[in-house]
Every structure is written in C-alpha cells, then in structure tokens.
C-alpha cells in the first residue's frame, strides 16, 4: 500500500513537471484552467481532511487560503526584486512555505475553539474566522487594503500546481491510512467512543485543522502567483462554500471522488461560458439536482478513506 502511494506520488510529480516544460506550447486559456484545477484539488483535498475524514464542519477554508496567498505574495513582492532570476524558484518555494506555515498557525487558532463546539456552532465560528481574516486584510495598509495586492510575479506554472496537488493528495492519503491517521476517522465516527478507546479527539481535530489550513495556505500562494492580483473580495464565504460543495459532491471522506469533483466543478463554469448569462443559474440548478438524486456524492466507488 505504502509503496503504491509513493510510486503514485513520484509519477504524478514527474508527469506534472514534464508537462510543465512543454506547457508553453499549450493554449494559454486552457493552461490557466488546468492550473486552477490543480489549485482547487489542493483546496478540496485539504478541506476533505477536516470536513470529510475528521467529520468537523469548517466554512472558513477561503480564510486560510487568503492568509497563505497574502503572505506568500507579500514575500515575493518584497524580496523578489532583490534576487537574481535564477533564485526565483527558491524564492517561490520559500514564499509558498511561508504562506502555508502562517495559514497553519491560523488553523491552530481556529482549531482550538473547535474543541468545545460542534455542528452548526463550529460552522459559524469557522465562518466568523474566515470573515475576520478577510476584514483584517481589507483594512491593513501593508496588504493593500481594499484594492489588494497587484503586480505579483506570475511564478505559478502547471508543474508547481500539479506537483503540489500530488503532494497534498499523497500526504492526506498516507496520513489517513496510517495507524495514527485512523484516529481521524474514529473521531469522525464517534467522538466519545474514540475517546474511550484512548484516542484524544482534541488533538486529532486540531491536527486536522492545522494540516488542512497549511495546504489551503499553499493553494493560496499558488493562486496569488497565478492570478498576479489578490483582492480581499475573492476570499469571501462564497469561496469557502465552493470548496465545501466540491467535498460534498465528491463524497465526504473519499479522496478520489473529491479530486474528480474539484476537476468537474472547476471546468464546468468554463464549459458554460457559451451560455454566459445562464451559467451560474445552471450551476446552482446542477448542485440542487445532484443533491436530490445523488446525495451521497457523485463518486462513491472504493473504500471510504482510501486514496
């Protein structure tokens, strides 16, 4: 099992970086969508760790993404011009890591209150944290206030996005399938019973939030260096909802399903561009229709929790 997953990770990274070298010959529009898909896979798979595997209900994933995006973008904006072009990939890696770590700290701050709250109350607290983060960026002069950050170097390539998506999938899958990680699923199934079995639900919940937020932060960094502009409005709770919809459509706690849902829900609005004025109406009707007909998620094959 472990060997198979390592192989998957290696192949995915090699393919992503390999494709990245020839990506210059692709249509820029399609390439942009492909990068969006990679970023959304990271977001959906990391949220799946919190909402799917661990059974918490977070509505603040866009907030973590914002933290990662803003810190990574600020880092490259400040240090980028001082470094030679050859150092740019290292700078970018550093920026993404910084964004991920700061987002993980934010995840810790959200995870701690989650010890006492569950269900709707947890949802509202995470939503509240997401909004607080957004308001702070919106008022902070350092981060460009309401206009946001502009002129961010376009460092995100196909290779970066998809290689990091592969790493995210690998880490989450290995974590959940490990002896330690079974605790997440135990907490999901029954917190009190898990506690009686010697599993510390508090620790698992906080861990899920910290790891989930870390990857959301990385996705935010990729997003910032893909779009080249960041505005606080892009991280409102509608964005969090979009990610939640991906997780639920994919089938909570099913990594493969969530990946497919992330791909479909990113491409779908683009496919509907031809009927632009009805696009979002169709999108919302599809969500309702799918929930009425396939409430267990679109993709339900495979063992729950398996990668």
């Amino acid at each position: 099992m472990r060997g198979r997953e390592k192989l998957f990770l290696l192949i995915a990274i090699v393919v992503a970086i390999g494709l990245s070298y020839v990506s210059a010959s692709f249509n820029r529009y399609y390439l942009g969508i492909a990068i969006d898909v990679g970023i959304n896979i990271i977001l959906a798979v990391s949220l799946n760790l919190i909402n799917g595997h661990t059974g918490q209900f977070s509505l603040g994933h866009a907030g973590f993404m914002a933290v990662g995006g803003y810190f990574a973008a600020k880092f490259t904006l400040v240090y980028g011009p001082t470094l030679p072009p050859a150092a740019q990939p290292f700078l970018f890696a550093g920026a993404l890591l910084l964004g991920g770590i700061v987002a993980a700290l934010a995840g810790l701050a959200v995870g701690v209150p989650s010890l006492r709250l569950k269900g709707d109350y947890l949802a509202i607290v995470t939503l509240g944290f997401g909004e607080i983060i957004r308001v702070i960026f919106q008022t902070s002069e350092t981060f460009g206030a309401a206009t946001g950050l502009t002129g961010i170097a376009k460092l995100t390539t196909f290779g970066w996005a998809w290689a990091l998506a592969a790493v995210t999938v690998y880490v989450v899958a290995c974590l959940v399938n490990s002896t330690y990680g079974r605790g997440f699923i135990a907490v999901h199934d029954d917190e009190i019973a898990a506690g009686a079995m010697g599993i510390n639900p508090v620790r698992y919940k906080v861990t899920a939030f910290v790891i989930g937020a870390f990857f959301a932060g990385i996705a935010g960094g990729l997003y910032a260096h893909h779009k080249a502009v960041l505005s606080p409005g892009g991280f409102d709770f509608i964005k969090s909802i979009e990610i939640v919809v991906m997780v639920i459509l994919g089938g909570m706690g099913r990594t493969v399903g969530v990946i497919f849902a992330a791909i479909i829900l990113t491409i779908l609005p683009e496919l509907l561009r031809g009927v632009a004025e009805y696009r979002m109406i169709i999108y919302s009707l599809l969500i309702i229709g799918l929930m009425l007909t396939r409430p267990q998620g679109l993709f339900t094959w495979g063992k729950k929790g398996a990668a």
Partner: protein
Amino acid sequence: MDWFLQQLINGLALGAIYALIALGYTMVYGVLRFINFAHSDVLMLGAFAAYYLAPLVAPLLGATTIPSAIAVIVLSAAICAVIGMTIEYLAYRPLRKRPRLTVLITAIGVSLFIEYTGQHEKVFGAATKSFPTLLPKTEIILGGLRCSSNDLVVVGLTAVLLVAMWFIVQRTKIGMAMRAVSFNEQAASLMGVNANAIISFTFAIGSALAAIGGIFYSMRAPGIEPLMGVQPGLRAFIAAVLGGIGNLPGAALGGLVLGLLETFFGGMPGLSNYRDAIAFALLILILLFRPAGLLGKVQTEKV
C-alpha cells in the same frame, strides 16, 4: 452621553431588523434542525415584492400612507410565505430523511439559484434600484437625540411579532404540533400530527418574517439589488446562533446584541473598518464560554 444614547437608538433599530430575520432562521431550525441558507434570499425577494407592489397599491390606497404600507407589507409577506413553502416542497422535502449536510448544500444551491436568477436582466437585473418610501417618515428629536419614526415602528413591530410567535409556538394547537415535530418527528406523526403540513406552516411563517425584515432593512439601505440579502442574512444567522438557535427570545436577543455592536463599533473613529471583525470576534468569544448560545440549552451527549 448623547453619543451613547444616539448609538443605542440606532443599534436597537438595526438590531430589531436582524431579530426579525433571525426569528425566521430559528423557527425553521427549531422544527427541521437545519440552517435554511435560502432565508437571506427570501428576504431579498420580500424587498423586491414590495418594490413592485408599491406602485400597484398606490392608486388604490395612496402612496406613502399607512394603509398602503400595511397592504404592501402584508402582500409581500404572503408572497414570500408561498415562496418559502414552495422551496421547502421542491428542494428540502425529498431530502427529509437524508443527512443534514446534504440538505445544507441543497439550501446553498437554492440560495445561489435565487441570487443568480434575480441578477439576470430579464428578472430583476443586477443594478441597484432605489426602494420606494412606503411609510410616512418623520424625525423625532428629543433633547438632542434623533429618532426616525421608522425606527420606532420596526422596534415595536419586532416586539409584537416576537410575542405573537411565542404565543403561536407555546399556546396554540399548531404550536404544540410544531414542538412535537421538533422533539420527534416520527412519534409526532404516530400521534396524528401531519408533520409535512406543520413544516410547511413553519416555512411560511419564517419566510413571511424574512420578508418583513427585508422590507424594513431596505428602508434604511441605499437601495435594493439581488445580492442585498447576503449581508443581513449572515448577520441574522449569527444572531440566531448567538442567542441559541431554535430559541425564539434568543434570536431576538442575538439580533439586538449584533445590531448594537455594529452601530457602536461602526460609530467609533478608527474602529469602524473593523466593525464586522469585532462583531465576529465577540460572537466567537461568547460561543467559547456558552457553546450553545446565550439562551440555548446545553445538551449532554450520550454514546
């Protein structure tokens, strides 16, 4: 001191509107145990119903008179009650036995559907429209304090509706049926309660309250547009959770607390930009110390 009293008046008026909307959230939650995300869009539909009804009612009862305002508000509330029942029938009823999360996502889908349909140019259009003056408005000035007559109306109306809701739920037969469905739907059905009818009724009342809240919110807002419900809807949701969701006086209390917080922090120089963040931060703090809300009952979990 004057500043304090003035903010108190403004905060109470805004809080009363949040309380009206929160009452609808809480009633639906009380019966079905799920958050009706489309509530904020029903609020918007209520405002638009009033926008289109006002010119129709004006020739009959006169523009900006109290009878015409009452007619417009009652008709808009009735329209929204029907819309609320339709949403429940089409989107939520087929999912009654499913996990609550599924219903939640459906509710988000319904919410997006109403918003995007409303933004379409053939429906309402995305542009902001100015809301008609429904009620004759006078400024009451009392020793340096200003108070609009609308503010008094909304505070009074909220109080009356809160008592009415409490009466319906606690003192009538249909209210007893609502509490029974809330307690145990299956057992209530076995006792001869028509659960579907009760749930429809709850949605009708909740949506009517949302419509009234939406109309009064629009009277203060610069204009109405299809996304106008999102912000007050979110605040009202917070208010309902803050007060203890499912609890009627809690929703009213939560609404007032939120309205007061918003005006007090909005009125302080230097803090006004952070007013939403402060409201959320206080909400989180309160929930940390009272995880079931201010008036909610803490339920012990059994294995």
